[in-house]
């Protein structure tokens, strides 16, 4: 009826928007985009959402949607409009976001984005213009091109080697995410009224926060279907409609659910999530453990996934940093998520860790035989090797300057009733064998790590003490 106020009074963004053409769309005579635009504009008007609307312009002839709509406009790459729409929707949940796309865009290059967004179900509205051909690029075959239909890339007609036409409305309706899917057409007055109502309903569902909706519009492209407007409308009715049956494909009633609070910018909340505290922890070291190295101590912890090598490594790094030193920990895993190799490189430096890797460690803690065999020979002269004597029955011969400490990590931990504390036994052994930190430094790190599981602290303290005792027993 009368021009919707959402349409600009003059299409000044139109690159030919001067003079008369400043009031006419750039679409060909008989093109379906004009009507779809009009119904979209009228729906925005009637729902009173002009100030909230963000229209996503696609690729194809309708890329210039923003010439015509006095709403927020965002242009997207080929096929990516639905995810751009999501980006806008999550940025401002109050906005009404409309992704307007053609068939090459939505059903071909952007299929993954189309399906994933529909299944996500967030309330956006997708208007899908299906004219069975690529319009802007000159009439190539689209996923929706009919069998036998000729195009510039199916000159002899689409055949079985090109696959069958893609029925997007049915595909989308088969997903659980959408709430409303309908296919409409523009070829006669009755269909146009349905199309207009469908577009309005789809946007209304979004306004109400009920969910994702999808309207497929069978549209005419007289220029590339190479027919006059009247014949094209007839072709859509007689040839397209049998392949793409019109009607509602899905319409479920859900309560409004898409409600989101504004993002939180409370510093305390963020700090508490990060585990940051202003409490200064106690220090027990009298200085850097220079008896091991003047500047930088290199350790490697090696075992299988589940041995706790990474946790022990992290505790060493935390202990060092709480004492005011610098420290780093780098984990390294085999491709298996669990049960494969698990190595940790740790450095404790007086001022600054410079080489975070440990290719030639001073201290090796080995949780199994392969780790001991692999890394034992890399330990520096005068270094320390601590290994789990419960599982390593035959240790390889190492440089005589290396001090070796066989400690039954697993045996002690099992006796204590929890095999998982074998890494804490190892930390106790490390403390006693190397004197890297005072006992309290490591114990504090363990207690802090377990602050949310206080019940486990005594067990871990006991495991730590047994690690120390085992090394002291070896000395005697």
């Amino acid at each position: 009826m009368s021009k919707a106020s959402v349409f600009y009074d003059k299409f000044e963004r139109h690159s030919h928007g001067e003079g008369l053409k400043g009031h006419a769309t750039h679409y060909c005579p008989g093109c379906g985009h004009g009507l779809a635009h009009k119904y979209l504009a009228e729906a925005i008007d009637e729902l009173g959402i002009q100030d909230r609307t963000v229209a996503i312009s696609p690729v194809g002839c309708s890329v210039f949607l923003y010439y015509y709509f006095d709403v927020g406009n965002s242009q997207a790459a080929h096929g990516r409009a639905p995810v751009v729409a999501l980006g806008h929707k999550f940025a401002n949940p109050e906005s009404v976001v409309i992704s307007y796309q053609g068939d090459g865009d939505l059903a071909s290059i952007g299929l993954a984005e189309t399906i994933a967004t529909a299944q996500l179900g967030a309330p956006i509205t997708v208007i899908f213009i299906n004219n069975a051909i690529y319009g802007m690029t000159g009439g190539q075959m689209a996923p929706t091109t009919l069998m036998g239909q000729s195009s510039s890339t199916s000159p002899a007609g689409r055949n079985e080697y090109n696959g069958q036409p893609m029925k997007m409305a049915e595909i989308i309706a088969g997903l659980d995410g959408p709430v409303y899917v309908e296919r409409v057409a523009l070829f006669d007055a009755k269909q146009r009224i349905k199309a207009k109502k469908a577009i309005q309903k789809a946007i209304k569902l979004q306004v109400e926060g009920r969910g994702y909706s999808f309207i497929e519009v069978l549209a005419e492209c007289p220029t590339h279907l190479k027919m006059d407007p009247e014949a094209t409308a007839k072709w859509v009715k007689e040839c397209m409609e049998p392949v793409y049956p019109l009607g509602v494909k899905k319409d479920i009633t859900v309560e409004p659910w898409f409600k989101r609070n504004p993002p939180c910018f409370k510093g305390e909340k963020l700090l508490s999530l990060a585990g940051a505290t202003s409490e200064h922890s106690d220090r027990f070291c009298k200085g850097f453990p220079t008896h091991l190295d003047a500047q930088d101590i290199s350790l490697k912890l090696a075992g299988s996934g589940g041995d706790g090598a990474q946790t022990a490594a992290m505790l060493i790094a935390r202990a060092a940093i709480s004492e005011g030193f610098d420290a780093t920990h780098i984990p390294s895993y085999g491709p298996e998520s669990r049960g494969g190799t698990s190595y940790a490189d740790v450095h404790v430096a007086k001022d600054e860790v410079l080489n975070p890797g440990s290719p030639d460690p001073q201290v090796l803690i080995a949780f199994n035989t392969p780790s001991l065999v692999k890394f034992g020979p890399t330990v520096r002269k005068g270094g320390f090797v601590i290994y789990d004597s419960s599982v390593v029955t035959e240790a390889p011969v190492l440089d005589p300057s290396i001090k070796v400490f066989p400690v039954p990590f697993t045996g002690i931990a099992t006796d204590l009733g929890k095999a998982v504390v074998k890494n804490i036994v190892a930390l106790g052994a490390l403390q006693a064998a190397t004197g890297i930190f005072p006992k309290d430094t490591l114990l504090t790190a363990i207690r802090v790590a377990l602050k949310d599981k206080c019940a486990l602290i005594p067990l871990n303290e006991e495991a730590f003490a047994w690690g120390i005792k085992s090394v002291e027993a070896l000395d005697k």
Partner: protein
Amino acid sequence: MALKERPKPFLLPEYCKGCGRCLDACAKDCITLSDQINPLTGLVPVELDLANCNACGLCMDACPEPYGLRPAHEGEIQDFELEDPAKLFGVKPSDAPEPIDLPSEVLPLPRTEPLVIKGTYASALGALLAGCRHVYGYPITPSTEGAELMAKFLPKLDGTFIQAVSEVATVNMMYGTAGAGLPTMTFTSSPGFSLMLEGVSYMIGAELPGVFVDVMRGGPGLGNIAPEQSDIKLACHGLGHGNTHAITLAPATPQEMLDLTMLAFELSFKYRNPVILLGDGYLGQMTGKVQLPETMIKPGIPKWAVYGDAMHRRNVITSIFLTETDLEAHNVHLNAKYEAMKVEARSESFLCDDAEVILIACNTPARTAKGAVQDLRNQGVKAGLFRPITLWPFPVEELKKAIHGAQRIVVVEASAGQLEDEVRLALSKAGVRQFPEIESVRRMGGILPQQSEIMTRVLGQKEVLA
């Protein structure tokens, strides 16, 4: 009460393309196609004979042109004649307000004890402190923990983390949120970053901010998940199609993963351009000491955004410039912006003043190189380290100072010369023709150069190549 008379259609032939939809719609056969080509449009418009018209309105419903068949009562027709071009073609009579900037706020934070966290977590915290509450991503080692932390924290901050269907979807979700004027970021790793480049090019074209944390791993192809500096060239010179550049930051410690992520957001909004944080696989996984800052940011909404409200209704986000002259002008504008970004060049020089051997390295290899410099100094060799912190723009002025008086330059990198190419290009563009032959310590495949290899190269003059 008199019934309101329904208006009949009215048409200016110049707005009619002659598609004939109205012919089909009219039950009274009031409309026919003219047999005359309209000289102004070159098209054949319809003709109305409204003698039988009952003003049902179906023809107006069927007209696809917004200014096509319109309802008009007798006597209203003049309103629509082109008598006053100034009225029609003057300033757009939009009632949308002029957009304005809603500024960001800087909020104070208490001083806290250092955290002991891995690089990806540090970067994620940096993003949250920079005001980012919209994160999209696709899991890829060794960057995944960043996304995992966001997935855990953001719902508690009423923010959004969406795991996208692919990296392609990720970057386009960022495009949408950035278009709305809000901070957004992703964590990715080399193969994922390759996939994002289309979107990065669009963001640069549409002048949108966004932060890409790329934890580089071994390539090409699937390669492996160990550290390599495989994307230096991509980030500095290969960001999708067109005339593209983005500030590229190269952290060397978990602390810098946080600090430079925060800086990345600031620069990204300052220049309305993506910013890339290039870490290596070690930096993603490495746990270390991280001091949190004493302020955080609550973002505003910039005036150029398409937020989806009345204030920003006038705006459009697009990278289309259809006419050649428009696109050239846009590229001239972008190049001027890239030129302005050069003031953001950052670097660190360590013991370079009197150095005879200058090592050049970034990311984790720079730490190792620093260790080598200290050891070389202990052995009486005057060595220094130049560490670019921005790889693009390359800090060439500082590099020139650092290599002044040097007899040797050794580039230490976990790639087959990508950093060395940046060094050569920067020196060449800066007109520096005389500099010592560049020597290299290069490892690949996920192996980082070791200090011993650097020492061998500097002391033994032997080329170290994997």
